[in-house]
């Protein structure tokens, strides 16, 4: 690896600054600041209700923070709608997987690839997608066939080659999580937010997800990983941010965080409540 690529792989990409999110009387996020770098897995830990999903909602544009800013490589994301944030390179999965019922697994991936085809945003003006598609122009048909082939290739690389023709309605919970992850990877994100991607999975599926996460890291993606399975989280994360009651209470390497009395307190305190 050259010095230049090493530098690129450790560059700050996502910058979360002083973010607060208030819902009525609940301060779900309280002045949270951290950064994520390209090519790292940043674990996000915290007891139930700590604000982890809210943090992802704020970063991905689902919710607008009541204070603070989020930016990607210097470009502000705060206030951008979800699809705009995605087209800038930040995508996510959901605590409850979102499936595209009515499509097959392959078609679900192809939807993600279609957005990619047009610079990360879909649809382009009617002349570029709707009309060629409706008239069935040879160019558009070829492009769609290519999307299908690429979807198959992606499924194969995620170990899901056998699933391409399955209806998404027929998937088991663990398969839904894997498909959602493969779909998110298909848009080649700069930052990938994974909300409890291991919950509800069997050990084989856990290993599959962790393999995909490590591969994404190697490809230079900044992966933010929310997970209650602390052992797995600490094993895959390069750094960890810990939230409790909306505040960042710790940040550091997995071993530092695991040994931090404040963190231990937060988890034990939570269990005693």
């Amino acid at each position, binding site marked *: 690896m050259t010095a230049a690529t090493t530098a690129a792989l450790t560059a700050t990409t996502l910058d979360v600054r002083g973010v607060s999110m208030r819902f009525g009387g609940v301060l779900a996020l309280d002045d949270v600041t951290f950064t994520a770098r390209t090519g790292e897995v940043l674990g996000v830990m915290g007891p139930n209700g700590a604000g982890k999903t809210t943090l992802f909602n704020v970063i991905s544009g689902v919710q607008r923070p009541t204070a603070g800013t989020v930016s990607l490589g210097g470009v502000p994301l705060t206030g951008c709608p979800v699809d705009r944030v*995605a087209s800038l390179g930040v995508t996510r999965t959901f605590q409850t997987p979102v499936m595209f019922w*009515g499509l097959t697994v392959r078609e*679900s991936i*192809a*939807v993600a690839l279609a*957005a990619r085809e047009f610079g990360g*945003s*879909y649809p382009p003006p009617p002349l570029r997608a709707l009309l060629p598609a409706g008239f069935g122009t040879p160019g558009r048909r070829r492009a769609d066939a290519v999307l*299908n082939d690429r979807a198959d290739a992606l499924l194969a690389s995620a170990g899901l080659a056998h699933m391409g023709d399955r209806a998404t309605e027929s998937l088991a*919970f663990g398969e839904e999580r894997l498909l959602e992850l493969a779909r998110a990877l298909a848009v080649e994100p700069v930052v990938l937010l994974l909300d409890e991607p291991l919950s509800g999975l069997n050990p084989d599926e856990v290993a599959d997800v962790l393999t995909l996460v490590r591969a994404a890291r190697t490809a230079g993606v900044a992966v933010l990983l929310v997970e209650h399975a602390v052992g797995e989280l600490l094993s895959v994360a390069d750094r960890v941010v810990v939230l409790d009651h909306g505040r960042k209470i710790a940040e550091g390497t997995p071993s530092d965080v695991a040994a931090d009395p404040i963190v231990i307190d937060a988890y034990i305190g939570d269990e005693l409540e």
Partner: protein
Amino acid sequence: MSFAPQNAYGRVALIVLAVVAAAVWFLPAYYTGLLTLIGIYSLVTIGLNLFMGYAGQVSLGQAAFVGIGAYTSAVLAVYLHVTPWLGAAGGAAVAALVAYVLSFVALRLRENLLALATLALGIVINVVFNEWEFIGGSSGFKDIPGFKLGAFTFDPRAYAILSWALVAVGIWFAGNLVRSSFGRTLIAISAGELGAQALGVDAEKLKRQTFVLSAVYAGIAGAVYASYQSYIDPSSFGFLLSVNFVLMSVIGGLRSLWGAVIGAAIVVALGQILQAVVPVVLPSARGDFQQFFLGAVLIAILILLPRGLAGRVSEGGRA
């Protein structure tokens, strides 16, 4: 595996068109007229199915776009002597423009409110038809020129063939669309809008393009209707017609393009049957009662066949 999308819709539609083109030479005029009406309504409903069945939205104002197409073409023909062929294009363009403008308000809204917004559009447009004397006001627009091909002025048979030719083109186009990445993305937003947005899908823009396309279908249908009837008035494009389009769409099966045609045929046929039967069974019943019975029969169909007659929405449930 390489997958080249083939469109069987277009081929089947050509066969249907050939059957219609042959049948009109044998059918009594009354049935040819019904066939024309079914063709015109099918065209509207195919467009509506893209917006409702595939994109998962609701429109209770589709009759307004039919009316806009009809009035635009009529005005162009009567005042400016524009041929209905161009008038249909003009009608489609104006309907598309109105849909485009409205979409900036309506498509921000969730389903129930979208239904109300499109309903309001229908009512407002109808008020315009009623009050605007330039287009005939409440007494309507008479002597609308017919379609011509060279020296030949369209007769009822020609209108039946024209309307089904448009159905064939409309279903071919929609068939290509639903099998393309565009159609898949429509299904994706109807199933999980936020999930699609997180991949970079601009759901509002996608719905807007589809809504405008549905208005184009309706506008063309309206232009053909105006020339076919040679007379239009505001009551031809009222709220009940919009409801009937939704019924056609739902009865045939929302996520099915041929379902749109089947739905249109059933609603038109039921309307005719009730018109014949109700006065015999209930001599005191008036016109409103027919609509009442039509509604009742259709609700019964919906309860018995919730996915519509041609429903192709996957049967697979969640494990």
